[in-house]
């Protein structure tokens, strides 16, 4: 495990919403990420994927568990540790306009990063801004423009250029193509594919669109109500989804094949809110394969065909899954 860049161990994020209600957004998430690896974090709204992403970068609360990035303990890290985390990570956001300061031109937004982190000597700054802009496919002539004078796709490119200015080892991209037109979406996905290959960038790609994840990611983690219910190599998960929720998600992707119609029996119900998580397996009220045990006990991770699945369907009652997990991790 020493070769992992990021280790998230039993992470929990709970916070108070209005009226004293406790939102249990993330409930025990564990995964590793190697340098240069891309992990897709998939799930519907309210599953905690964005909260998780922010907690990893210490941009949001962190209730329990450990996050270690490149030797830094993010949860308890001191000032120097967090400063180092900031120098080695960056984030890309969903709304390309909102993620940029509306009063700063995109050139000065990129420039600011270079200045604050002293990435290049002052006389090289202008050249480096132009370089970064070209890297993400923006004409350097646009440097003087404010976000409002640019299109959504151009703003997203500027956001990526700003993230790259840090020269990060890890980028967390939160739904970064969801707000873009399809033809622009493809441009941005291609840009990310090229960049991660060129720069050995680790990427956590948070998305609800499975098609995008399949294109871009080495591994996929499917989240439901704050837990990872299935995790594995992208091809394994897509070719043979195991968790009933993953299966339902896959079936719900609208294929652009006119011969492959709408599923006759789409998954019923809607994700319950993280304010009131069902007992046992959180998915049981919607699960087509629900069993009595699902209402009682939380399923442990089990390793099936290269994927980790948290579902009682795959649980061998004689196996102690904790032992199993330790055996595999060891």
């Amino acid at each position, binding site marked *: 495990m020493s070769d992992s860049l990021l280790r998230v161990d039993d992470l929990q994020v709970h916070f108070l919403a209005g009226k004293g209600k406790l939102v249990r957004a993330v409930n025990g998430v564990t995964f590793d990420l190697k340098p240069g690896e891309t992990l897709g974090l998939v799930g519907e709204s309210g599953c905690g994927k964005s909260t998780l992403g*922010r907690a990893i*970068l210490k*941009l949001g609360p962190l209730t329990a568990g450990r996050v270690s990035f490149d030797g830094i303990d993010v949860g308890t890290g001191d000032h120097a540790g*967090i*400063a180092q985390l*900031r*120098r080695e*990570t*960056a*984030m890309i*956001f*969903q*709304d390309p306009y*909102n*993620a*940029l*300061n*509306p*009063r*700063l031109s995109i050139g000065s937004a990129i420039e*600011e*990063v270079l200045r*604050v*982190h002293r990435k290049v000597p002052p006389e090289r700054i202008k050249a480096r801004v132009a370089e970064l802009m070209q890297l993400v496919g923006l004409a350097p002539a646009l440097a003087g423009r404010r976000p409002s004078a640019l299109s959504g796709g151009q703003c997203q490119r500027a*956001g990526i250029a*700003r993230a790259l200015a*840090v020269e990060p080892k890890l980028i967390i991209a939160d739904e970064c193509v969801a707000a873009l037109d399809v033809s622009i979406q493809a441009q941005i996905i291609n840009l990310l594919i090229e960049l991660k290959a060129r720069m050995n960038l680790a990427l956590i790609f948070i998305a609800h669109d499975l098609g995008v994840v399949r294109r871009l990611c080495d591994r996929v983690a499917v989240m439901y109500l704050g837990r990872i219910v299935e995790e594995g190599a992208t091809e394994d998960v897509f070719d043979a989804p195991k968790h009933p929720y993953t299966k339902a998600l896959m079936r719900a992707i609208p294929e652009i094949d006119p011969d492959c119609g709408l599923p006759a029996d789409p998954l019923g119900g809607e994700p319950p809110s993280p304010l009131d998580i069902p007992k046992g397996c959180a998915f049981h009220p919607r699960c087509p394969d629900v069993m009595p045990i699902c209402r009682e006990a939380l399923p442990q991770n089990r390793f099936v065909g290269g994927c980790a699945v948290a579902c009682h369907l795959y649980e061998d009652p004689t196996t102690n899954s904790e032992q199993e997990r330790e055996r595999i991790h060891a």
Partner: protein
Amino acid sequence: MSTAIASRPGWLPRFSKHPLPLLLGAGIIGTIVLLAILAPVVAPYGPIAQNLEVKLQPPSVDHLFGTDNFGRDILSRIIWGARIDLQMGIIGVFFPFLIGTTVGAIAGYAGRAVDAVAMRVVDIVLAFPFLVLMLAIIAILKPGLTSFYIAMALVGWVSYARLIRAQVLVAKSADYVTAARSLGYSHLRILFRHILPNVLTNSIVFSMSDVVLVVLSGAAISYLGLGVQPPTAEWGIMIAEGQNFITTAWWITAFPGLAIVVMALGFSMLADGLGEKLGVRE
């Protein structure tokens, strides 16, 4: 949009696209400022030049706005008074703006204890009626313009603090602020370079309308004898001095009163127009 702007002939002045209140307000305030600066040139008489031979004259060709009980020319006193009243309005707004913005921004950004303390102080200041508190502070210090400014700064900042705090609270959770945090920027940088420039417009617009309030309370304080001291030409004092003659020589109070109304109108139109121009929602 771009073509719409491009289709405008180049020679047409740019402000033709500005809202009408902004133009009118800027016109009025500009005129007052110009008169104040050029007072020695445009005012027909000195501000305290007495001529008892012509005391209590109604408006005439020689004295357009008439004269007071010392024979001083009302028009000249109004023009000279504009210097004091403008200065009062600007300084009386500047310090509250500065203090209020800083306190509000820090309270909103830091949250928790800092915010709680700052907001309790705001509550305490707001618990007293505005003028009563002003008068008390000035009385403790000593009557005069400086005391007025100090009192204004001590009392007036609360509205700015509340305004800015509320907006900083909203802006704090905006993506661009999270982005700035993720890039490792210092709190000072985030607050003053990224948040403040985006939330300042409301306060600037508010400060324009606040000038009206400050000038009016400055006039009121002077009227009560705690602000600018006679014989200085100041609109509030002029009204105060004229009230003994209100039945016999209405012009002594009416014209300075009108001057205050015009200036107030100018600033409030400027505030309106600026608000419209900068897209501020009330």
